[in-house]
């Protein structure tokens, strides 16, 4: 991360904590706008809680929650007016920092031969509001991918450098959640500019706000708040403990890096391949999946060409296409690649797991394949790399 010096989210040793009443919450939006931020956050759409531009506090999914399980997602009314009382939806924040589809450059055939015209980057700063702990971890993981190496991805870097991260502590966990197993939540620990904890008590609705950066402090300067926050830390901890106890899934991650690489020929890969539709939903929903492909197009005159980049998935057949064939032709090999990468080879590449336990891949899999269950099945019957012999 040393290279990413432009990141604003430096956590000071002494974290300042303030409180903001629900009635003063719109002032946060005003302060963000006044500071030139576009506000991106949760809102109702597509029958789910999705991430989109917010034009006011009223766009937040006030009083709504979600119910999730394998291949299941339903919106549900809450009995209160919580703004952030849901888990995570089908969208991940990566859609703003690593856009699903964008033009990288244009090319003109000219007298001189060829002009490559770099695409103008957006100059608008984003404030991402409502980033859960698992999601914040996912952003830090993608930082490693796009900014942590020898080269920096210019698109990601441009969008990330000015992004203001307003995290929210999870107040409830869903049936597909397992961030505790992945050491990615439920409490937001670091990497944020502001971190909100929504507190709903009898006759009280307010936010505890942890200030994580100078920029965050600057935003809060224009928001009415109270410094009377005795017991706030305790309250946050209590909420986190409560949420942690609600985790719907568990993954045993002990020695998982070797477990998957040593069980390359496990019969469970055939089993999961018989269920997997290779639809790529898991990779699209996953907040850390970063694969992309490019498409080159020309206009009808043939003088103008463009290169577009869009999300790709290791579940597609063409992903490993070479002139002499596909490296991973079978569904088995593609599922194995995805899961092994996510939980094992990611450590080799970036020093962390590629999974944050958000559960999206379980919820949004049309046939309810459950990554935690697949890990358990492999762990339960280890073959040491040899095909498991079938029992009589």
């Amino acid at each position, binding site marked *: 991360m040393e290279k990413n010096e432009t990141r604003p989210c430096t956590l000071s040793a002494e974290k300042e904590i303030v409180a903001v009443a629900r009635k003063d919450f719109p002032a946060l939006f005003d302060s963000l706008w006044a500071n030139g931020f576009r506000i991106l956050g949760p809102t109702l759409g597509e029958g789910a809680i999705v991430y989109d531009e917010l034009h006011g506090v009223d766009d937040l999914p006030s009083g709504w929650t979600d119910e999730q399980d394998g291949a299941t997602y339903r919106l549900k009314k809450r009995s209160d007016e919580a703004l952030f009382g849901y888990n995570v939806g089908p969208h991940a924040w990566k859609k703003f920092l690593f856009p699903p589809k964008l033009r*990288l450059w244009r*090319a003109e055939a000219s007298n*001189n*031969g060829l*002009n490559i015209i770099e695409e103008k980057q957006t100059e608008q700063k984003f404030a991402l509001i409502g980033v859960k702990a698992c999601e914040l971890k996912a952003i830090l993981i993608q930082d490693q991918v*796009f900014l942590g190496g*020898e080269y920096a991805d210019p698109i990601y870097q441009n969008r990330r450098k000015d992004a203001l991260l307003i995290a929210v502590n999870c107040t409830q966990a869903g049936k597909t959640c397992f961030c505790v197993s992945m050491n990615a939540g439920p409490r937001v620990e670091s990497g944020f500019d502001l971190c909100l904890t929504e507190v709903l008590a009898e006759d009280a609705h307010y936010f505890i706000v942890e200030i994580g950066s100078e920029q965050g402090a600057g935003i809060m300067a224009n928001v009415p708040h109270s410094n009377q926050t005795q017991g706030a830390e305790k309250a946050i901890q209590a909420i986190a403990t409560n949420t942690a106890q609600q985790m719907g899934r568990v993954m045993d991650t002990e020695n998982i890096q070797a477990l998957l690489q040593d069980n390359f020929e496990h019969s469970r890969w055939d089993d999961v391949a018989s269920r997997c539709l290779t639809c790529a939903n898991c990779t699209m929903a996953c907040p850390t999946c970063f694969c992309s492909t*490019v498409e080159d197009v020309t206009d009808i005159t043939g003088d103008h060409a463009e290169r577009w980049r869009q999300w*790709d998935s290791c579940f597609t057949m063409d992903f490993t296409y070479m002139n002499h064939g596909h490296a991973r032709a079978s569904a088995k090999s593609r599922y194995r690649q995805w899961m092994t990468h996510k939980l094992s080879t990611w450590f*080799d590449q970036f020093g962390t797991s590629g999974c944050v336990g958000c559960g999206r891949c379980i919820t949004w899999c049309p046939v309810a394949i459950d990554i935690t269950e697949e890990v358990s099945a492999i762990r339960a019957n280890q073959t040491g790399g040899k095909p498991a012999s079938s029992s009589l």
Partner: protein
Amino acid sequence: MYTVFENRQGTAVPESLPNPLLPVPYRVLQNKRNTHDVFTLDVEPVNGGNFPHFLPGQFNMLYFFGKGDAAISISGDPTTEQPFRHTIRRAGVVTQALEKLKPGGVLGIRGPFGVPWPVKEAEGQDVLLVAGGIGLAPLRPAMYTLLANRDNYRKISLFHGARTPEDLLYVTELEQWRSRLDLQVWVSVDAATRNWMGDVGVVTKLIAKASFDPLNVVALICGPEIMMRFTIQELEKIQIKSDKIFLSMERNMKCAVGFCGHCQYGPHFLCKEGPVFRYDQVQSLLGKREV
């Protein structure tokens, strides 16, 4: 895990390319046919800029207008000033288009990328270069480097295998190298008619016949994956250690800088940790299917 590279020459990062996703225009100086499906493009920067420095074994992404990119290893001489040279086999849409480029034609280039052959580390030792088919193209810059610093190496042996005599690359150069007294050059084809007076048989068979010190040799291999596996088997028979064997791998590449994910091979990104790997880095993967 990757400390192996600390002692090796670092990847050359072209300072003229702040955005690694953006091609730079190059003009074709010459398009020379090598075999029925292989050709060599010499190019220079359109805007008269300097040639980025490259190291033997590195590759460029060649862009043909509107068609896309192809990853092509650089096959010219890194020790002298000369145009960027790429020997290309016609295979897909992009290479078919590149094949038709004439002098004056323009293409885009991103690069150079990738980890090079360990030519510096091989100093003081015998060197084997084993090239199958088009695999001679990425090894040629290594050969130039070895020859430019001939006194720094002991015995140098080049093995080149091809399908037929008509498929041999760089025949004139092979002849020149073969005539040198300080090189062993072995050429073999899989099948030939009587016009061919050279060796017939798999290239791996020749390795046992060459003279080198198995305890003090570095082997550089580039060719189809099957051929590389068989070559490694031969080298292992004569007790060459896995950390003395280097091979250049191939996978689908798109971005070439580790962002797009396509070229992953087990834990490795071929574009930035390869294409040249020390055998013991990929040993456990080579025998596996659909990695």
